[in-house]
C-alpha cells in the first residue's frame, strides 16, 4: 500500500483538520466521507458557514438562506464527532451572514444539542462581527475614509443611510484568542474563510504562509477534489514545511489539477488571497501528487499588511417585492417583446409616475441571465418566459406595480398581431409576494488600530 496521509501522520509536528462542508447549513453534509475523515485522527473539525453568494437579502433582512433544521443537522453532525473525538470544532460566518443574530442562533443550537445528547460540559466561544452605522458615520465625518473595493467610491452618508446592516470580516484574531482561552467549540461571526483554518495552525506555531494557504485549500471541502461532488469531507495536514489535502470520499481524489483549480475558485485573481492583516502570494506555489488521493503544496508566501484595514459588507433595503410570470409563444410578439414590456411599463408610469418604485423584466429565452452581455440576444427562442418584479416602499404598491406590468402585457398593443384575445400566456393570473429587495450597499474597507476591535469575544460553558 502506498504511503497515505490517511494511514499515518508525518513524523514531524503536524495539525490535521477535517472539513465536512464548504457552506455549512446551505446543503447537508454527506456523512459517509465525514465519518471516514473522523477516523483519520483529526485535531480539529472546521467549516465555513457564510457567503456573499446568497445575495444581499439575508444580511439586509437578518435571516439565513436555508431552513433552521438544515443548520441544526450539520451542527449536530460536527458537534457529536467533535465531542466524541475530544477535538475542537470551529464554524465561521455563522448562518450565511455572520450577523450577531446568526451567531446567537448557532450558539443556541449548540446548547440545545448539548442538552439533547447529554454531552459532558464543554466551553463554547463566540464572537460578533457587526459594525454600527454610528461608528461608520463618525469615521466619515472625521475624514477617516471608508474606502471602496472593486471600483466603488468611498462610503458617503447617503449610502450609509440607505444601509440596513453591516458586518466586518474578521481575520484569525478572535479565533486564536478563543482557542487560547480553551474553547472547545467556536461559533464565529463574519470572517475570512481561510482564517477559520489558519487560526488553529498559527496558534500551534505553523508558518503563516502555510497556515493561510491551508485555510484557502480546505475552506470549500470537496470542491478541491475530483470528480465534482460537493459536501464531501476533505482532510488537511499542515507541517512546518508543507500542506497536504486528501479526499475522504473513496470515489474522489485530490489531484494537482483539482487543487490548483480550486486555488483560483471564486476570486478575481489566483495568485493572491487577502484577509485582515495581510495576504498570501500563491504565485510560487508548487503542487505535487503525494499519494493517489493527496496533493502536497509548498511555496506560498505571507505578506503582512502595511496598514490594518478590514473588509466590511453592508446591505440596504430597496423595498417590498412582488413577482409575476408570463409566457409568450407568438413569434411576432417574441420579436417585439421590448415593445410589449415598454407598453406594460408605460401603464405603470401612468398610474404611479416615473419614480418611487422599481420595475424589472427578465426575459427568459432571450437574455434574462446575461442581460446586455448576451451575444445571442437577437436570436430569442420560440417560447419566452418573462419574470416581472415590482419593488416599492409598501407591499400594496409593490403588488400593484407588479400586477399592472404583468396584466398589461396581456393587453399590449402591437400593430400587426394576429392574436387579439391576449398577448401573453399566464402561468398564474396573480402576482406573488417575494422577499423584500435589497442591494449590496457596502463592499468597502476601513482602518483598524487593533485586529480585535470590532470583534468582541465571549466564552461560556454548556453541557451537563
Amino acid at each position, binding site marked *: 500500500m502506498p504511503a497515505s496521509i490517511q494511514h499515518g501522520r508525518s513524523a514531524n509536528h503536524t495539525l490535521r483538520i477535517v472539513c465536512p462542508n464548504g457552506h455549512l447549513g446551505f446543503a447537508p453534509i454527506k456523512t459517509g466521507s465525514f465519518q471516514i475523515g473522523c477516523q483519520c485522527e483529526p485535531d480539529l473539525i472546521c467549516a465555513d458557514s457564510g457567503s456573499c453568494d446568497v445575495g444581499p437579502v439575508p444580511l439586509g433582512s437578518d435571516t439565513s438562506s436555508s431552513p433552521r433544521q438544515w443548520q441544526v443537522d450539520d451542527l449536530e453532525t460536527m458537534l457529536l464527532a467533535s465531542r466524541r473525538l475530544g477535538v475542537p470544532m470551529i464554524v465561521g460566518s455563522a448562518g450565511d451572514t455572520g450577523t450577531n443574530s446568526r451567531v446567537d442562533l448557532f450558539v443556541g443550537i449548540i446548547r440545545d444539542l448539548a442538552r439533547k445528547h447529554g454531552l459532558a460540559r464543554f466551553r463554547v466561544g463566540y464572537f460578533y462581527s457587526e459594525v454600527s452605522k454610528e461608528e461608520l458615520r463618525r469615521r466619515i465625518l472625521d475624514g477617516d475614509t471608508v474606502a471602496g473595493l472593486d471600483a466603488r467610491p468611498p462610503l458617503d452618508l447617503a449610502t450609509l443611510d440607505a444601509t440596513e446592516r453591516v458586518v466586518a470580516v474578521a481575520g484569525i484574531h478572535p479565533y486564536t484568542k478563543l482557542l487560547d482561552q480553551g474553547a472547545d467549540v467556536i461559533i464565529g461571526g463574519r470572517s475570512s474563510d481561510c482564517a477559520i483554518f489558519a487560526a488553529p495552525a498559527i496558534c500551534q506555531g505553523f508558518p503563516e504562509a502555510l497556515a493561510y494557504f491551508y485555510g484557502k485549500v480546505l475552506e470549500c471541502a470537496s470542491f478541491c477534489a475530483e470528480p465534482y461532488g460537493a459536501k464531501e469531507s476533505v482532510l488537511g495536514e499542515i507541517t512546518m514545511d508543507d500542506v497536504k489535502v486528501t479526499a475522504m470520499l473513496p470515489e474522489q481524489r485530490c489531484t494537482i489539477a483539482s487543487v490548483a483549480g480550486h486555488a483560483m475558485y471564486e476570486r*478575481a485573481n489566483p495568485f493572491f488571497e487577502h484577509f485582515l492583516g495581510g495576504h498570501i502570494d500563491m504565485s510560487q506555489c508548487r503542487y505535487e501528487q503525494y499519494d493517489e488521493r493527496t496533493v502536497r503544496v509548498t511555496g506560498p508566501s505571507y505578506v503582512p499588511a502595511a496598514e490594518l484595514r478590514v473588509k466590511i459588507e453592508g446591505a440596504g433595503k430597496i423595498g417590498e417585492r412582488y413577482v409575476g410570470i408570463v409566457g409568450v409563444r407568438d413569434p411576432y410578439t417574441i420579436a417585439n417583446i421590448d415593445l410589449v414590456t415598454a407598453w406594460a411599463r408605460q401603464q405603470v408610469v401612468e398610474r404611479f409616475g416615473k419614480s418611487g418604485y422599481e420595475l424589472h423584466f427578465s426575459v427568459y429565452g432571450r437574455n434574462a441571465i446575461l442581460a446586455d452581455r448576451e451575444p445571442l440576444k437577437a436570436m430569442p427562442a420560440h417560447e419566452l418566459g418573462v419574470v416581472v418584479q415590482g419593488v416599492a416602499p409598501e407591499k400594496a404598491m409593490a403588488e400593484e406595480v407588479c400586477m399592472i406590468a404583468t396584466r398589461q402585457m396581456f393587453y399590449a398593443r402591437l400593430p400587426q398581431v394576429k392574436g387579439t384575445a391576449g398577448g401573453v400566456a399566464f402561468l398564474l393570473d396573480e402576482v406573488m409576494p417575494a422577499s423584500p429587495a435589497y442591494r449590496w450597499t457596502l463592499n468597502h474597507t476601513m482602518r483598524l488600530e487593533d485586529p480585535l476591535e470590532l470583534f468582541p469575544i465571549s466564552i461560556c460553558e454548556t453541557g451537563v
Partner: protein
Amino acid sequence: MMASRKLSEIAKTIRSKNAGVDKITFDVIFPDRATYDRVRESGVLSRAAVCRIFGVDAAQISDHVAFDPALAIKFTIYRQMPSGSPGDADIFGSQQYGPLLDIDVPRG
C-alpha cells in the same frame, strides 16, 4: 489548417462564479499542457476576445491571467449591477459562461 473545434470540446472545465459582490470570474481549465498552450496562443480568450464576446470595454475586465499550475485561463469582469440586486437574474454568477462554450479554436 484543419477544421477548428469548439472550446467546449477541448476544455475540461468552463465555469463562472461570483468573485465578491461586484465581479464575476471565469475559469477555463484544460486537460493538458498542449491544449492550454494552443488556446492561449490562438488568442480566442484574449482580453480583446473577451471584450468582443460579452460586448464590454477593456476597462470592465479587472483581471486576465494564465494560471499554469491549473492549466487555466482566468479572467474577471465587473458585474452590470451588484449580485442579487432586483433585476439581476444570476445571483451566484454561475451561468455567465454560456457564450464561451461555442468559441471556435483553430487546430494547431
